[in-house]
């Protein structure tokens, strides 16, 4: 694979995680615990959607195969999507939503901070814009976790339950594939080992403050970079891609 192709695949997968998370959050437009929080959740959804769009636009430019950012989002199947399986997880309750967000925000914070120094100017520029948004997201989800983890017993239990479920989808975020390794050696991609160290330091310390026990000996999902998914992604794409698939000649 040529470097250009690898960068396109790298940008596409970053876009995939942003798009699917944005999709999940968008559905919460009126389901926040307060109206203010519903507005905040849609705001964060919009930030992720903006990130997805710019990553896809860059991938489309590098691919130069006549497909645009909408084709990338709307015309690929489950196995062609490379998003983290974590972001596919459902909006079961507010503890799930906020913990999922926190785990991704902590990742994005360290990941995009590092990507700002990429040798690829476009990726660095996208990261420089994204990191401004991610800082807010991270603060927001962390503040909510404090309120859930240190507030009532009911909220703590719900958070603990969400952790048991979501922790299974954290490890694969740090597993590099051949593209990560090849691009990291050129100073283009982020070194995942270093992101993992920083993420674990933050998350373990915070969970210890919240007296949350990290689940041990549980299933760990893998293979998101090879198009592996939970059964949930197929349904997400069915819904998302319905119109462009049903009316392939239409422009919207």
């Amino acid at each position, binding site marked *: 694979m040529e470097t250009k192709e690898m960068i396109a695949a790298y940008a596409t997968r970053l876009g995939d995680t942003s798009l699917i998370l944005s999709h999940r959050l968008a559905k919460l*437009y009126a389901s926040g615990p307060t109206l203010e929080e519903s507005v905040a959740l849609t705001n964060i959804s*919009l930030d992720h959607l903006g990130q*997805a769009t710019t990553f896809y636009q860059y991938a489309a430019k590098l691919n130069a195969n006549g497909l645009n950012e909408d084709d990338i989002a709307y015309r690929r199947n489950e196995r062609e999507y490379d998003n983290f399986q974590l972001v596919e997880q459902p909006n079961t309750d507010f503890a799930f939503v906020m913990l999922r967000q926190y785990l991704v925000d902590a990742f994005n914070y360290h990941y995009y901070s590092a990507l700002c120094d990429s040798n690829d100017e476009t990726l660095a520029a996208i990261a420089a814009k994204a990191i401004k948004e991610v800082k807010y997201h991270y603060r927001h989800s962390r503040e909510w976790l404090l309120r859930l983890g240190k507030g009532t017993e009911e909220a703590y239990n719900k958070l603990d339950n969400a952790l048991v479920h979501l922790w299974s989808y954290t490890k694969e975020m740090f597993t590099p594939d051949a593209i990560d390794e090849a691009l990291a050696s050129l100073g283009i991609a982020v070194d995942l080992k270093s992101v993992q160290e920083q993420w674990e330091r933050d998350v373990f310390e915070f969970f210890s403050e919240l007296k949350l026990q990290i689940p041990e000996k549980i299933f760990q999902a893998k293979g998101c970079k090879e198009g592996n998914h939970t059964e949930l992604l197929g349904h997400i794409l069915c819904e998302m891609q319905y119109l462009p698939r049903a009316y392939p000649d239409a422009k919207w």
Partner: protein
Amino acid sequence: MDNNEEYQKNLLEFERKIEAEEKIEPRDWMPDAYRHHLIRQMSQHAHSEVIGMQPEGNWVNRAPSLRSKKILIAKIQDEGGHGLYLYYAAETLGVSRDQFVQWLHEGKAKYSSIFNYPSLSWADIGAIGWLVDGAAIVNQVSLCRTSYGPYSRAMVRICKEESFHQRQGYEIMCDMMNGTEDQRKMAQDAMNRWWWPSLMMFGPTDNDSPNSQRAMKWKIKRESNDKLRQKFIDKTMDQAEFIGLTVPDPDLKWNEETQHYDFGQIDWEEFYEVIKGRGPCNRQRLETHIQSHQEGEWVRNSAREYSRMMKEAKKELV
């Protein structure tokens, strides 16, 4: 000065301000009936913004392009923001947001009946923006001059965003009318279903609108229902014709003499049925709102408990 004298003096000063186009502010004296009229109208307006998120939210995960998805999410978010401005403004009248929401859930407060219709295709998102927000703007531009200061200022901000929504909705309709046969059919179908309910948004005819006269006298309302409805029809007709949409009203025609469009009979029976809670989505809209409010309760409780603990901890430090 006895109570009656003081009341008359306050009333004169209030009426002088209204006459002089000075705004009434939260700490100013105002007649009880004026306050109650505003509480009813502003909370109904706030609820409409919030319930109005639902028919659009029905398509948020099916928007057909990244751009249209972005616009729709941003629009729904704007509506939530409008709900907030209006709840804040209405709270200045001495009623809490919790109370407003409780009245909504108990069926004591209403919201615009237009949101009790289902959104069945992507073209409905265009029709809601173009027709529903278009009708709302005609009403809201007039409300920017309303006599109650906080309401008027909220409306100025809201109108700026609503005019974007109206243009975005019209853009969807234009794109669909310029698109495939299927898209044109969808657009016309949405027009057929949303046209009459949009006209009903302005409320009953002036002869059947009991609260209107007093609201006009106090300049809460600045123009009558019928006048606003006519304004909307006149401006929308040209836009419909321009993109080749047919307005589903055989009696609609230009009247040279009045320089306005004449239009057919509105089905007021349907209007009152929906207002009384017997529209296609009344039950669903309210249940969805109640359910998400209830599901948020444990979160709000935990946030309150956390805040209480933090305050305690601060006290101990002092």
